[in-house]
């Protein structure tokens, strides 16, 4: 179902966007989302990235790849959070650079996104975060994720 970009933008600009309902629009809105993740309004761009993650799929990974390179930390955080829902190798490859992001919130959600992914490269990154991250909460989170991954 085709939705005009402006309408999609207005829906994403609500106080509480209904992501569940919007996700039902399906991959048809991903091209608009690819534009919206580069919107000047970082709130709209971040919400577009979140919606793309809820939609999922290979095309969504491309949208999230754009969002992960956004200069705004809000958008990169949304991209890291959205990658939790995309279980693909391509998505795993997007998580690694986010684990080294300068913003602690991006790293936090990247650690969450790295959970339950049997990817040795990611586990090595998590090890490094567990030891070297300046934020105690992120080190603790990385330790928990590693513990769960090794148990699994």
């Amino acid at each position, binding site marked *: 179902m085709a939705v005009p970009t402006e309408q999609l933008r*207005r829906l994403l*600009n*609500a*106080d*509480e*966007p209904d*992501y*569940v309902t919007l*996700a039902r629009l399906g991959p048809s809105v991903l091209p608009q989302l690819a534009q919206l993740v580069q919107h000047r309004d*970082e*709130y709209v761009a*971040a*919400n577009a990235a*979140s*919606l793309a*993650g*809820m939609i*999922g799929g290979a095309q969504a990974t491309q949208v999230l790849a754009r969002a992960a390179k956004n200069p705004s930390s*809000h958008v990169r*955080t*949304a991209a890291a*959070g*959205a990658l*939790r*829902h995309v279980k693909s190798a391509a998505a795993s490859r997007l998580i690694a650079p986010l684990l080294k992001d300068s913003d*602690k*919130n991006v790293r*936090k*959600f990247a650690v*969450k996104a790295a959970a339950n992914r049997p990817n040795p490269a990611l586990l090595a990154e998590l090890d490094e975060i567990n030891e070297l991250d300046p*934020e105690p*909460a*992120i080190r603790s989170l990385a330790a928990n994720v590693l513990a769960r991954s090794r148990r699994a």
Partner: protein
Amino acid sequence: MSTPFEFESWGSDAEFGDDMHEFGDTETEWESEFGRRSRRPRQFVRPRIVRRRPSTLSRAPQRPRFWPRPRFPVAGRPASPVRPRPRPAVVGRPPFPIRPRPIFPILPPWGGWIPEPPPVTPPPGAPPAQPKPPSAPPPSAEPFPMEPLADEPMAAEPMAADEPMAAEPMADEPMAAEPMADEPMAAEPMAAEPMADEPMAAEPAAQDEPPAGEFEIQPEAFAFESDFGEFESGLGELETGWGQFESSPAALPAPCPPPVLVKCPQRGTRPADILDGFQFDRDTLSATGHLPRISALARQIVQSQSSARPIRTLLIAGHTDAAGSERYNTGLGQRRAAAAMQELCKALERVRPGVSRGIQFQLTSCGEQQTRGTPAQSRRVEIFFPSTTGPTRGCPPYRERIRLHLKILVQPTRFSIATMLQSMQQVYGPAGFLVEVASRENLRLPALEVLDVFCPGHPSQMCCPFPCASSNLNREHVALFQHRNNVRPNELVVYFVRKTEPGLNGCCAYPPGRPGVIVASIASRWTLAHEVGHVLGLPHVRGQLDRLMTDGGTNNITNPPPDLVRSETQTMQQSSLTIPC
């Protein structure tokens, strides 16, 4: 010719003699050291006066010795024009209380008593003589200085307690933090207080003391510089403080209201603050441990005065350890409580003068009845706020109130908190609701600044449902809502975060029993009112952008302020979170 007479110096003979002759009928005889005699008859007992040459005068001030010495007030006119000695400008604050300087009429050397002529009895049959008007003073004579003269420096303003010294202190005078009434002068070679009967330092031998007569000259009367020269009788340099300082005593701090003695609160009552670590058998407050806490408590009390629940009553309970008799410990506890109360009262007056008058202080001593783990912990003073049961009654013109507690992790970036509150009042006020901020607290929770609001078990589902109370919230969401300091059950908490993931301007979901909302840093000015509306039971309204509860986003509201309709108002009134005034 030798000098048959000696008198205390009042100036040159010629001037004195000339002045004498200005006073009309009343004539006196006066003998100068040069032997000049007046041929006028004597009309009063000549005082025995002693005059010394100026060069022989000692520098020490001489007490005038005259006989008879007039008492004050005296009738008559001043015998000579005098000019009061100008006072030095007051610099700094005198370390001792200043007595007001008395003003006396100016006296001539012999005491100033100029007898009035005897009344003339009219012959029988003659009309009664008109009362003789008093002779006009000579043009050169100055009137009685009944008021401070113009060249005298004005009295300095009384200083409030603990007021920092504005001017530099005296050279050798140590600076005192507080006015100390009993502190003597530091380096001045003068007595601390003026004493009229204080013997002079250079007082001659007793045989020179004139016999006590009807009159007695007060030393203060001679604190003037006469026109007859530079000699001053009286106290001179030995004038005490009131001669040098014009300021009145520093104003004492406003007295604390007298405390009310009450019973010791029950064990387990939670105090607002505890000042422990008193020294054994001492009631002295520690400058490093107790006073800063008392200052912080005073600031808290003063800040509460402008809130909906001002602190108007303080209960201060003194405790001791178990050593010693119960009776003694009760007294010691009372002293500790009194010391804490005094210091707290001073701190309150420092923060806002006069605030302590509106506060009732209750004192009690629990003695050794409520000891704690260690003796040092037991030696303490506990301060309670026995506050009112709830908010103040009545909030006209509103019918109900909504009390918010603000917990700030990140300051909003788009609209300030004040703007959001004002906008909320703009919408809620016409509906009859008063929005009150009960408290404001900054939370340092860096891990929760970007709040994960995904549903546990449904990672692709966001948890911000309506109705807002939900037991299926993300762990971070629940952890944030644990912070509810000073929040009552019927009050709301607003958490200001950086953002949520996924992105929301605000979210009304809360764990059961902990009503509150989340507001992101990029929220609109109406987001707070919108989310609180959800908590009060208002659902979204489809498509109507002029309504507060629009589902189109408060960023897109048209015709601000947005509206609340009657049905919505009734729903809000039925909520347990709206408190009737």
